[in-house]
């Protein structure tokens, strides 16, 4: 949403020509209406429904004959105060896990993904094969990847025999965190690699030639030429990965299991509540997660996005000139 808003061009001049613009404005609104309708359907409605649900509670009282009283009652912000009150330890633990996983996996994926992209970009024999094999982890469904890594990390599994350790990776504890970080990095670094590769392929060869003529070494070329030029693509990849990692669910769920404090994320918390048929608290967790994701996305786009789009626009202008 934020990206599209920023790319909508010429808001200022449009307002200046208001008198003339009224008609085209209406036309634009009309033309955009299908988009808004779809957005309202797939974004607006679930969001509002979740917000509404988070203010209600139900199904937790028994009547005299032992049946659960049906219907929901309005409880205001009680579900939220409960999150920060009686359930606060669990919530902050999940919040910390979510943040830890996001920061560590995205950082690792950027480094490894960029390295993969550079390798994939190289013109060499068997390039097709290398590209395909690097992308394999990305093509595997997360739940399946979770199972594969669970076998690797089980007590008598490959990980322990390779490392010569006797760690219990899938028990509740720090090895479980590490297991999730490793598996997620393995799984999604190719995604970053793919986007960076697309960015790399846009860089004209002559820039590198010029750099070489000027006497830049391989490392200097990468650091001073390749990286700045590939930055826009890299930022998009990082943004996608951030949003994705913040709502991480299936990998820790399958790899380590539900209700394990070491790897419980905010999404898992919401799922757990919903599974116990407590939709109010579940919706409250979901709304809090949504706010967290929204804030992160907003800050990211504000801090880096302006630069990102600026770069691109400048480049386009340069190409045209």
């Amino acid at each position: 949403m934020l990206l599209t808003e920023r790319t909508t061009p010429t808001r200022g001049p449009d307002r200046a020509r208001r008198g003339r613009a009224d008609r085209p404005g209406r036309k634009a609104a009309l033309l955009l209406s299908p988009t808004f309708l779809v957005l309202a359907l797939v974004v607006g409605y679930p969001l509002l429904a979740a917000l509404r649900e988070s203010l209600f509670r139900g199904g937790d009282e028994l009547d005299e004959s032992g049946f659960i009283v049906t219907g929901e009652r309005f409880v205001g912000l009680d579900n939220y105060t409960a999150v920060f009150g009686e359930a606060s330890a669990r919530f902050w633990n999940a919040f910390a896990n979510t943040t830890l996983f996001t920061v560590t996996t995205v950082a690792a994926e950027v480094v490894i993904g960029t390295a993969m992209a550079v390798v994939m970009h190289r013109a060499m024999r068997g390039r097709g094969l290398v590209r395909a094999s690097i992308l394999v982890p990305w093509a595997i469904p997360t739940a399946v990847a979770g199972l594969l890594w669970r076998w690797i990390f089980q007590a008598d599994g490959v990980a322990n025999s390779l490392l010569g350790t006797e760690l219990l990776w899938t028990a509740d504890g720090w090895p479980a965190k590490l297991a999730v970080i490793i598996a997620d990095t393995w799984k999604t670094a190719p995604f970053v690699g793919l986007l960076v590769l697309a960015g790399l392929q846009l860089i004209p060869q002559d820039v590198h030639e010029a750099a070489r003529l000027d006497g830049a070494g391989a490392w200097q070329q990468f650091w001073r030429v390749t990286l700045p030029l590939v930055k826009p693509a890299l930022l998009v990849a990082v943004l996608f990965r951030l949003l994705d990692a913040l709502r991480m669910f299936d990998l820790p769920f399958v790899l380590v299991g539900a209700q394990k404090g070491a790897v419980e994320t905010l999404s898992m918390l919401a799922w757990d509540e919903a599974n116990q048929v407590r939709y109010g608290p579940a919706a409250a967790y979901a709304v809090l997660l949504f706010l967290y994701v929204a804030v992160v996305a907003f800050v990211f786009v504000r801090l880096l996005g302006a630069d990102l789009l600026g770069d691109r626009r400048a480049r386009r202008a340069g190409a045209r000139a």
Partner: protein
Amino acid sequence: MRKAAIAVLMASALAAVGCGSDTGSRTPGDADGRGPITFATLKDGTGTVPELVQRWNADHPDEKVTIVELPEGADGQRQKLVQQAQTKSDVYDVITIDIPWNAEFAARRWITELPREQFAVDGFFDAPLRGSEYRGKLYSIPHFTGSAMLYYREDLLDRAGVEPPSTWTELRAACAKVLALPAAEGMSCYAGQHDKYEGLTVNFLEAVGSAGGEVIDEQGNPHLDTPEAKAGLEFLVDGFRDGMIPAEAITYKEEEGRRAFQQGDLVFHRNWAYIYALANADDGSSEVAGKFGVTVIPGADGPGVSSLGGNNLAVSAFSTKQATARDFIAYLTSLDTQLEHAKGSAYPMTRTEVYTDPGLREQYPYLPVLKDGIEQARPRPSIVRYGDASTAIQESVYAALKGERTVDAALAEMQRALSEIAEGS
């Protein structure tokens, strides 16, 4: 102007969406309705259930049954059934539930009360039948049941000259002798299911029951402040501390434990009946084929008390053909059908007479042990908030097993949490 137009469009879109959501397929349910029905059940690898359904269909052309498979794993199964009930959908008529959900599903009016006389209830084992009741009324019919069994390495026990144990002390003594054998090098004594999931709750309930206690009584009140509860938890905690249970068993669910036993890593293993055939497979997948036996799980002073596993059949309250649904359940759980069913699949049946059938006893040599186990077994607590209770138990027991909480602290915390749950429901 433009903004106003957009706002109007947005508002109308939302309104349209809002109206649309109210028209779900809600049905009031019909207690006497008849017609073709669906049977939501778990995947049957042996193909026996589909055969039994076909036989029903041949006799009831107007009330044909269609099998719908539920997701594998209790979580997925539960999620599907909850969704179905939340939308009050009539897509499932007969549903398969895990036995501890009986109370909750009944209290939520998702399943209907069943008339005892239609189902010949006297033939069922007592424990599964009790687990199918909520506040004295019957809400589901036991389809499969099962108690834990103690799998032991008969070859090693014979070599060490010890009998299969029936108490925890005997179990430890037997281990001391067996593990002294050169052939038992690198092996561990015992393991059950100790990962943090429903299996841990089952193992803990069993340990307390086998020490003569009861975690939650029939009124839903917890009793963790008893010496029996302490003895039960100590059996597990001390087991981990002194290495009777190997450290990696903290990651064991049913399958991990089975693998360890099959690889010859364990002298004793607590598991369900389903692993018998797998551990006895002579295709090379099991190193213990023909080398093990089963007995009733041990307890503090005598044979232990198992937790009851199993699946029940219930009639969805949203079904419009509940009369047919009841008939079908009666057919599927009748003695004749169960005898037939048992021939094709190793799932433990719920009628006592199945266990005395000579043909079946030959086919499944563990049947007498299983029968003893089920007769001793106890259903898991029949409380509405079972899921929360199980989570609270797992939380404390797991922390105690990992040494993060003392036995006393874990029991006190469990008592507090379970009392809160009992009050809330």
